[in-house]
């Protein structure tokens, strides 16, 4: 039998210190080696308990989660999963934490009847994934005050990149997007499984730390080069040709694969609207969302990419696509940005400019 993953639970709520171990210890493969009620105790206990993974509440008295995280990362870098409150403020703090090196987050249970098992499952998977992860030490992102280039409407993107990503996504996306230049010639659409309220903050953080424009998508946003649109939580995102430009449309349809947003919805739509100009990327994450959609992109003539196993926090989604033969290329996280840059720059002029052709029609 493999050694269980040793977890330290840090939370100021006595109830959570009881509940979280119960949730995660039902899996024999996880062992809660200790709990701490605030950051100071956590820091004291880490050297003795030698946990593999830490779950961290951000809202604590004395030393709050943020400061704790900063110190953990400085003194004994450990994979840390933020257990966050389900609120706007929680979202803000959560992304700050992710930018400080937290690996991932789950939102605290707020209704036992519907969420408990789901959250327990999510937490277990994320802890296991975290234990396996080599801690990717990202440089603490500096907020760059860069002049965002003016919107270039009328110029359609060379390619439309649809990215599906789940567990491990925030870090991976940060890594990839920060390497793209502001004049990236394609448009990137991202489905990141994340609750409502978190996506806006997530986009904002990314925008501050990346040269390329990142924004949370709103219905009617234009597909223009050099921009990344992140689908808001609890909505599906699709693309649509309109007389003046290509736009994204958000809908409130049923969950697909248990997710809203679903990567399948995005990828199917991108495949049908853009055909060969579509690029599908399926990155780290649990489950199979996006695997089918990736297949559609491939069948419609687009390029499909799956993230290579070694750089995935959870290999589930890429593997599902690879096993079905839907991934044309398997690429490591390190090479992904370059690949996208190269793919979108290639054949720039040989593609028909759909939007340009119709722009003068009105």
């Amino acid at each position: 039998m493999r050694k269980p993953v040793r977890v330290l639970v840090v939370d100021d709520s006595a109830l959570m210190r009881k509940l979280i171990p119960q949730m995660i210890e039902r899996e024999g493969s996880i062992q809660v080696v200790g709990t701490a009620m605030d950051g100071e105790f956590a820091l004291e206990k880490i050297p003795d308990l030698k946990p593999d993974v830490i779950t961290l509440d951000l809202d604590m008295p004395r030393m709050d989660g943020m400061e704790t995280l900063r110190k953990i990362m400085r003194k004994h870098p450990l994979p840390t999963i933020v257990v966050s409150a389900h609120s706007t403020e929680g979202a803000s703090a959560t992304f700050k934490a992710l930018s400080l090196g937290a690996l991932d987050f789950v939102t605290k249970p707020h209704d036992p009847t519907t969420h408990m098992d789901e959250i327990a499952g999510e937490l277990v998977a994320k802890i296991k994934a975290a234990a396996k992860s080599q801690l990717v030490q990202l440089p603490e992102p500096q907020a760059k005050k860069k002049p965002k280039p003016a919107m270039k409407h009328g110029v359609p993107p060379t390619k439309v990149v649809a990215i599906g990503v789940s567990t491990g996504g925030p870090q991976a996306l940060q890594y990839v997007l920060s390497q793209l230049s502001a004049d990236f010639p394609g448009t990137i659409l991202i489905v990141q499984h994340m609750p409502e309220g978190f996506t806006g903050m997530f986009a904002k953080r990314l925008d501050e730390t990346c040269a390329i424009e990142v924004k949370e998508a709103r219905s009617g946003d234009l597909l223009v080069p050099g921009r990344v649109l992140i689908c808001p939580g609890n909505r599906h995102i699709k693309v649509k040709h309109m007389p003046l430009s290509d736009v994204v449309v958000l809908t409130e349809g049923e969950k697909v694969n248990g997710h809203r947003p679903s990567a399948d919805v995005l990828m199917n739509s991108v495949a049908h609207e853009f055909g060969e100009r579509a690029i599908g990327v399926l990155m780290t994450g649990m489950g199979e969302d996006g695997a089918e959609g990736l297949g559609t992109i491939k069948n419609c003539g687009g390029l499909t990419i799956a993230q290579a196993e070694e750089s995935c926090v959870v290999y589930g989604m890429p593997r599902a696509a690879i096993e079905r033969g839907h991934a044309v290329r398997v690429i490591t996280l390190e090479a992904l940005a370059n690949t996208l840059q190269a793919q979108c720059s290639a054949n720039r002029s040989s593609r028909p400019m759909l939007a340009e052709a119709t722009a003068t029609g009105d």
Partner: protein
Amino acid sequence: MSFFSEERAAELREVFFESAQELLQALNEQGLELEKTSGDAEVVRGIRRTVHTLKGDSAACGYRELSELAHELEDVLQPELAVSAGGALAELVLSAADMFDAMLAAYRGNMQPPKADPLRAMIARLIKNPAAHSLRSELTPAFEWSEYDRLAMEGALTNGQKVYSIALAVDRHCPMRAAGLELILRVLSECGLIISRNPEEIPADGAVDHLEVAIATHLDETAIRSKCSIPTIVENIVVSPWTPAAQATEPSPHDHDVLGIAESHAATAVDVAEELDEVPLESMATAAEPSAKKPRVEFVGAENTLRVDAERIEAVMNLVGELIIGKSMLHQTINEFGQRFPKDPLKHRFSDAISKQSQVLNLLQRSVMKIRMVPVDQLFRRFPRLLRDTAKACGKDVQLVTVGADTDLDKGILDQLAEPLTHLVRNAVDHGIESAEERVKAGKSPQGFVKLSAYHQANHVVIEINDDGRGIDADKVAAKAVECGAIKNEEVTRLTEQQKLELIFESGVSTADEVTEVSGRGVGMDVVRSVITRLKGTVHIVSVPGRGTTFRLTMPLTLAIIKALLFEVGDQHYAIPLNSVVEITRATFDQVHRVDNCEVLQMRDEVVTLARLSRLMPEAHERSITKFFVVVVRMGDKKFGLIVDRLVGEEELVIKAMDDQLVATELVSGASILGDGAVVLILNIPALVERVVYVHLPIRPVPLPASTTGVRVAI
């Protein structure tokens, strides 16, 4: 498979109830703090953190009503609001704490939680926003056009058209709203090309209070205005020319607000943390007020605290008790062995082993006793709120000071002290402290002052409740006591001031001229004394008219083990707590005088009333010994002498509780077992003194049940 099994859920709920109580306590304290600091941002954040945790915890346990209420409360807990709302926010927090408490009680009893409507009304009143809200929807439209809309609008502009953002408020009294909206749209489309509209679809019931459209037209503003002014349908119109610069590419203003606030919060929190980090330690120590420091200390305590069922500790304590008895048995046996074989080398090894054993046992006992000790702060911390509410109810301004909150006391004692202390504090505020005018007239500050203090004194913990009020009028107490028949009029004249004061503990005596809601019903002080006595403590009053009153409760550190003085009366062993013994002296009957039916002994310059324990004996035969010992004990500030035949010594006794069926007398407060297996009865001194000294009736022997007949000791 569901992870949330019923027993797990039940266990979790237990944890929840316990931690929720702590959160409520914290909420009460923070609410008071807020009242004092009126809107300190840090305090508000602290409150929000508490409410937030309560929200999360209750949600996780499925207590939806509580969680939702906490959520609503959390929303109002903004530092900005605290400044504008002033004391109202503190009031809200405290009421919420009460509401939560009531809800928790209901959940605990598996009942439907009470409706929180009054609290919700308070919240609503605090926000006072509904008016502003409708104003905003009528007059300040958002005009959030999507990128695509803007592209089209720009296109129209380049084609030489005018582009307007138009908002129309639908008349509130319009009977057929859906039809009205359709009409508006038709009029608008006559004006020009509608590029976008919000909402996109008009619901069948027309439940939309305003409509926003972006329109490309050749008409000018006034023309549009006049066309759109449809009586009884359109109540208000905003027409603003649109330019590409009019809308930034940033998130919508509404989103922006929310994010902005969240951001600034997060930022301040981090900043504060960073500041704290950099402040040198010593300056922090001096800067931190005691009130700010307290929760920290307590959190430390809480984390290192292991929650253990009191019964388990009780079990360990019992075993330790057995060990101690075992030790004395062993001791005695070894002594006998030593006498029988004085030259046996084994004798020394025995005594070495036993002395080592005793040491360890001593440590063990002390450690176990320490487990039961908790700081009196656990008790004291509920009083600020109580005092505030009482003071408010009485319309007085009273300040509470607590001293020595870290003094340790046995948890069992502490828990039972809550009721009497509550009573005393209420009394202090209601009866003790005068009204502000009265105080000023008496040359005191208008604000009253109540002090709660705790400190160790030998083997005791003393808890004092002190007020700077009007003091207790001893004669008034005595008069009341006569009135309600607690004492006869002629007896009063013989009482000292102090004795008159102590009549306040007689049932039915109250000095309040009027019965108020808070106190003054005359029940209570007798309860106070009976609880204290049951806990083997004493209560003492010091009152200076016009200056204030102090109630001093002297409690034993622990109930389980006492140091006792053992003595014999008529061949039988008794014990009394050593700490009540003031001194021991020898006397002869020649020195005993009779005053007023009491036997007294002149000791140095004072006269001590004697109690002849032999009068309690069943086969009472007054021995004709002329020399005896007098054990002087203190009760309140009176001393009494117990006449005993022989002193046995000092011993640690493990008190075994005796139920009422076994011994139906209040003279005995417990029993213990000696090393030789003999049972010793521990005497209850206050009851004893009352029986033997005060009451002049013939004393009936106390019948003992058959089960103790084999025992050498009996009363």
